[in-house]
């Protein structure tokens, strides 16, 4: 005696219409199981030039860095007027969250982690200042001012000289003191 399920296993006579309808069913099935196949494709093409004022991402190899340049000497006035109230006269900060200079990863006790002692990439300093600083008016600095402020913060940490010019070419070449201090765990997912 066949159970209801077993009855589906009985051979059926193949006909051309049946084969065609089966193929159509399979095609529909595959289109619904592929994640993108049923999407309506409503994205509008955009060009790189359209995004030039929108895409703020700076990669560690310097890609994305805008035109412009600046030195620490120029950056001091930017720092005094736009950064110092939170970060202190010499980058010493007014809290553990705003200290920019000092510390050593090899110190006794918990290390003070700052731009100088901890940050592995100079490009991150530029990227972060441009997208998020000053905290009360983010994105209000010009690209030149961001280069200048970046240079001044690196100068306070003894990483660049006072008159060293930072631009899209020189910034990615700066070797940060803790650049070898990180272990990539992104393979653990």
């Amino acid at each position, binding site marked *: 005696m066949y159970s209801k399920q077993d009855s589906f296993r009985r051979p059926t006579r193949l006909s051309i219409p049946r084969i065609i309808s089966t193929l159509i069913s399979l095609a529909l099935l595959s289109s619904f199981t592929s994640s993108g196949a049923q999407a309506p494709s*409503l994205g509008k093409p955009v060009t790189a030039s359209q995004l030039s004022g929108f895409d703020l991402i700076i990669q560690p190899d310097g890609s994305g860095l805008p035109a412009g340049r600046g030195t620490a000497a120029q950056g001091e006035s930017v720092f005094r007027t736009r950064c110092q109230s939170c970060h202190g006269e010499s980058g010493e900060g007014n809290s553990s969250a705003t200290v920019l200079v000092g510390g050593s990863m090899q110190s006794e006790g918990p290390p003070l982690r700052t731009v100088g002692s901890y940050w592995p990439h100079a490009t*991150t300093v530029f990227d972060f200042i441009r*997208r998020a600083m000053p*905290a009360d008016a983010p994105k209000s600095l010009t690209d030149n001012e961001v280069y200048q402020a970046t240079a001044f913060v690196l100068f306070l940490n003894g990483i660049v000289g006072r008159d060293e010019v930072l631009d899209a070419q020189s910034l990615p070449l700066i070797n940060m003191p803790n650049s070898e*201090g990180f272990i990539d*765990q992104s393979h653990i*997912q």
Partner: protein
Amino acid sequence: MTSNASLEKAAGNGLINRRHLLGLGLGGLGVAASSRVLSQESSLEFQIPTWSRRPGPGPSAYGERSIHTGHIGRLAGNPNPLYPGGGASRTPLHQLQGTITPNSLHFERHHAGVPDIDPAGHQLVINGLVRQALAFSYDDLLAYPMVSRIHFLECSGNSGTLLGDNPVDGTAQSIHGLVSCAEWTGIRLSTLLEEAGVQPGASWVSAVGADGASMGRSVPLSKAMNDVLIALYQNGEPIRPEQGYPMRLFVPGWEGNISVKWLTQLKLTSGPSQFRDETSKYTDTRPNRTSTQFTFPMGCKSVITSPSGQMALSRRGLYQVTGIAWSGAGAIRRVEVSADGGASWADALLESQQSEKALTRFRIPWQWQGQDAVLLSRATDDRGNVQPTRQSILADRGNLSFYHYHGLQSWAVSADGSVRNVYV
């Protein structure tokens, strides 16, 4: 009525077998499950209450909670004028039940406050190593096929205070309240990435929000193509502003910061962008002074939410110990509870619909007769991960960083009924 003598002990210091929660005679467990209470004559007088003597307000366009539950709220720190809009608020885990966090109580962590985004002026851009850079409006995205998933979200700084040398006098909320759980509905990220056409050489996706900080995080492409969502709805309603309205990235099981809110850009890149929040922050310095980076999955973890820190047991008798468990690696398979500081353990009852990277509620009966007790819970997930002790985390990772703490939580119950956070 089940007499206390018939309760099957499951572990030391009063833990009762979880089977007594399965409709086997302890229905009123939390309230009046002692024969002594039932044998006393009730002195209550029953009258028709005033609210039964008049009609109440009619239907409304938007519901409000009872004024009698107005004390339930998030715990937010004081505003820092030097960090406008920054900071966090914590979910009142000890005041909630089940596994779904109400949207109004979901924890928050902001880096430049909550932006007021008009969806008509918001775009989601996909660019970088793609065949064609694309922009999607909010209305565009509403037309895409969506999926719903129940997932926890946990800030990687959650519970980090337990790495301190001395146990803080805290609550389940103040110590562990940076975890919440919701049903997230949205578009598979893979759907949009396939439309843009991922180019060879792309291996990361840099996600950026539209808040004042334009906060960014880099997501490995393998994860992005797997289970990451562009979430548009939370528990059925459009995502609230503090959770990323009109859209957020949602990265199941991973540290909360990578689920970028107010999502406005996804850039395909060959490597991570090394944003501030994946270098200076959200990295873990080890005792040897190297730091691990891109430590994504949240650990296998649990916490007892009742009884918990700063609660007070007001009577002797039967209690229901309950809490939540979760794992960024998979589903919770087991939660054990101890009432004697970890000397003996009993399996708790797990209560959950879907527990893959979601909160799971656990419960177990406990007899308290005024004795000193230390309550702990220990979770195991379906990948075999077991929640570690605080000591083993300290031995393994030290305490130079406070992220990704998932050790056992110990709550001490004193003879006077008070409950406090302790280390064992």
